[in-house]
């Protein structure tokens, strides 16, 4: 037998109260010396002994009732924790992943975060108690959630609502969660991308590229649309062509749009394509420097490895000669002639990476160049991995488990209730015995005296 509240035993001093009342309240017959007893008849109340016993019985009942109440307050625990049926109510600690990846679109519509919140609300309402934590890193929030569960009575379940990106969680994180708590991992299916606008200038036309988002699994298309006509020097892709080349360049860009480019595009990079007949072309030969800004170099590296560009350039017919000096060769013909050059120059108000196709504007090379450039500017991960690397469902399933039986920490008042019941029973018996007892004594006294 263990006692949850042993300090309650101090309450036993209250037993002194009925004892005191019994001792003080008892009126012992006052002893009085008297000259003679010849006139004192037999009026002594006969049930004296009986009434004394009766009073003792009442006293005993009162003391026992107090003891039972004290015992109830001390909260006895007879059965051991493991045998307890336990509290069946469910407490859920829900962690919502708020990392960057959750800002992507969910397949169901809306951001993954919004979907996650809906899932969390549903799970929270179906539990008796719940708490919802929104964390950048679910792994960091798991210990706090487990601690909260430990304070609840009944069963507990830890829920993580996330897209479960690779590296976000691992088995070690869940190993720290006590075994009696269940683990539920609710995945929010996400789709990549969003709508993006790319403004570029082609000749003296400004084009705006807008991408429409297709559901996961399908590519996104880039379409070039005429802009509002305002001539502005913008960042982004600038195509400069001679007047006889515009149509060709336009055609090249249209052709390039058939190549799927995952959005979003990085529009902060200032890139320009200057065609052979563009008026700015000659200046490029002399003013350009070798690109040395980091992103330019990175972009050049990607362009160099782009198979589309390399393939187109291989069969290109070079119409312009490569100037000596600072330009970097991006692609060569099969014969080894430079087909596309790159340099760094200030053009149209920005320091740009300037690409110089040495082929005709209407050649395939220019379309390939645009396509390659678009792909290189894409912020999305490589096309081969349209989905971020997610933790596999099977792995998630291995981490999940149902919640165990109710915890011992919960207060089970069964034994205490028995003690309260006993106390009430004793008081009831005392009350019943008190009333008729006195009347009986009075009646007997009257009989004896009369």
């Amino acid at each position: 037998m263990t006692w949850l509240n042993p300090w309650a035993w101090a309450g036993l001093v209250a037993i002194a109260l009925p004892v005191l009342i019994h001792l003080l309240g008892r009126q012992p017959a006052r002893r009085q010396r008297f000259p003679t007893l010849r006139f004192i008849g037999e009026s002594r109340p006969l049930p004296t002994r009986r009434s004394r016993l009766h009073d003792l019985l009442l006293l005993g009942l009162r003391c026992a009732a107090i003891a039972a109440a004290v015992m109830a307050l001390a909260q006895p625990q007879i059965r051991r924790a493991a045998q307890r049926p336990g509290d069946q109510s469910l407490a859920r600690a829900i962690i919502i992943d708020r990392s960057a990846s959750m800002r992507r679109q969910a397949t169901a519509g809306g951001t993954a975060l919004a979907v996650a919140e809906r899932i969390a609300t549903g799970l929270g309402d179906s539990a008796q108690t719940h708490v919802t934590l929104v964390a950048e890193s679910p792994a960091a929030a798991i210990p706090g959630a487990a601690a909260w569960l430990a304070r609840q009575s009944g069963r507990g379940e830890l829920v993580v609502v996330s897209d479960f990106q690779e590296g976000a969680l691992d088995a070690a994180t869940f190993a720290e969660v006590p075994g009696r708590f269940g683990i539920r991992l609710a995945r929010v299916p996400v789709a990549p991308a969003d709508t993006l606008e790319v403004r570029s200038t082609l000749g003296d036309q400004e084009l705006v590229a807008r991408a429409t988002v297709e559901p996961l699994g399908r590519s996104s298309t880039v379409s070039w649309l005429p802009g509002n006509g305002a001539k502005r020097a913008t960042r982004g892709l600038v195509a400069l062509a001679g007047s006889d080349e515009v149509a060709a360049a336009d055609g090249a860009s249209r052709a390039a749009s058939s190549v799927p480019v995952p959005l979003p595009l990085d529009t902060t990079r200032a890139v320009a394509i200057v065609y052979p007949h563009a008026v700015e072309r000659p200046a490029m030969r002399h003013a350009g420097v070798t690109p040395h800004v980091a992103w330019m170099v990175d972009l050049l590296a990607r362009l160099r490895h782009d198979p589309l560009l390399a393939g187109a350039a291989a069969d290109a017919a070079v119409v312009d000669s490569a100037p000596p000096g600072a330009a970097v060769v991006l692609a060569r013909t099969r014969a080894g002639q430079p087909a596309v050059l790159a340099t760094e120059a200030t053009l149209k108000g920005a320091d740009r990476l300037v690409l110089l196709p040495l082929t005709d504007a209407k050649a395939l090379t220019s379309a390939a160049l645009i396509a390659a450039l678009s792909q290189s500017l894409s912020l999305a991960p490589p096309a081969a991995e349209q989905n971020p690397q997610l933790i596999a469902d099977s792995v998630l399933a291995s981490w999940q488990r149902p919640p165990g039986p109710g915890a011992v920490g919960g207060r089970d008042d069964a034994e205490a209730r028995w003690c309260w019941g006993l106390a009430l029973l004793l008081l009831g018996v005392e009350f019943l015995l008190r009333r008729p007892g006195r009347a009986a004594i009075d009646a007997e006294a009257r009989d004896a005296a009369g």
Partner: protein
Amino acid sequence: MGREVTGALNPGVVAAIDGLELAARRIVEGLRAGSNRSPFHGFSTEFRQHRPYRAGDDLKYLDWKLFGRSDRLYTRQFQETTNLAVMIALDSSGSMAFPDIGPSKFSYAVTLAAALAYLIAEQGNQVGLMTTAGDDLVYLPARGGRLHLRALLARLERLEAGGAFDAPRVIARAAQLMRRRGILLAISDFYDAEEETRRELRRVLRYGHDVAMLQLTSPAERELPYDGQVELEDLESGARREADAGELGPRYRAAVAAFLERQRRESIAAGIDYALVSVDTPPQRALRDWLLRREGRPAAR
């Protein structure tokens, strides 16, 4: 006899009675010391006769009271009285030690006995004492004189109430020891041996003595003024009995009243001078009333 303040004597008591005595002394003049007639009629046994008035009788001896009652003239004739012996029989039993608040019957009785002894001795009469101390009989023969009075008062002072008082035995013995005709004054609560005591008292009367009973009582033993349960302990036997005083009250009071009434009736019927004195009455007043009443008593046989 000088007015000596001795321990057992209450000067106030003496003063009250002395006043009475002086008043009585004015009535009767010129009697020698030792005569019973002056001043203290109460203790004198007037062995007197009435004879019809003859011309020439001293008007001094006319019984005016009798004239007032019967419309006939009688002359009182006095008999030569010898010095009177008064034997005071005092109850010293345990029951006399009640009440325990205020004067007990015993201390009251001692006060009365002392006052009376003083007066009797002052008159030149003889006074004796008969009582018990424990199992022993305490006896002082009836004698006169200051020394004897002092010894008697001293003995009174040493007395304590306790134990049982065998009233019949004491009275019988007292009667035996009274050589001359005298007065036997019994002061007691007369709780025990009612019949036997009365029988002995009647025998004393037959011997020719005058018998007076002073029955002492107290308000508490008449009324049982207690609440609820009391355990009463008999002062003489030590026996205990529990009673509900409130419930018992009326019956008790009736029983006590009946007892006292019976005592009075039977005693008077037997020719005993009976008086009931409650200890809440100041002793001097009780004595005065008693003595006055005795003065007005019809002549003894």
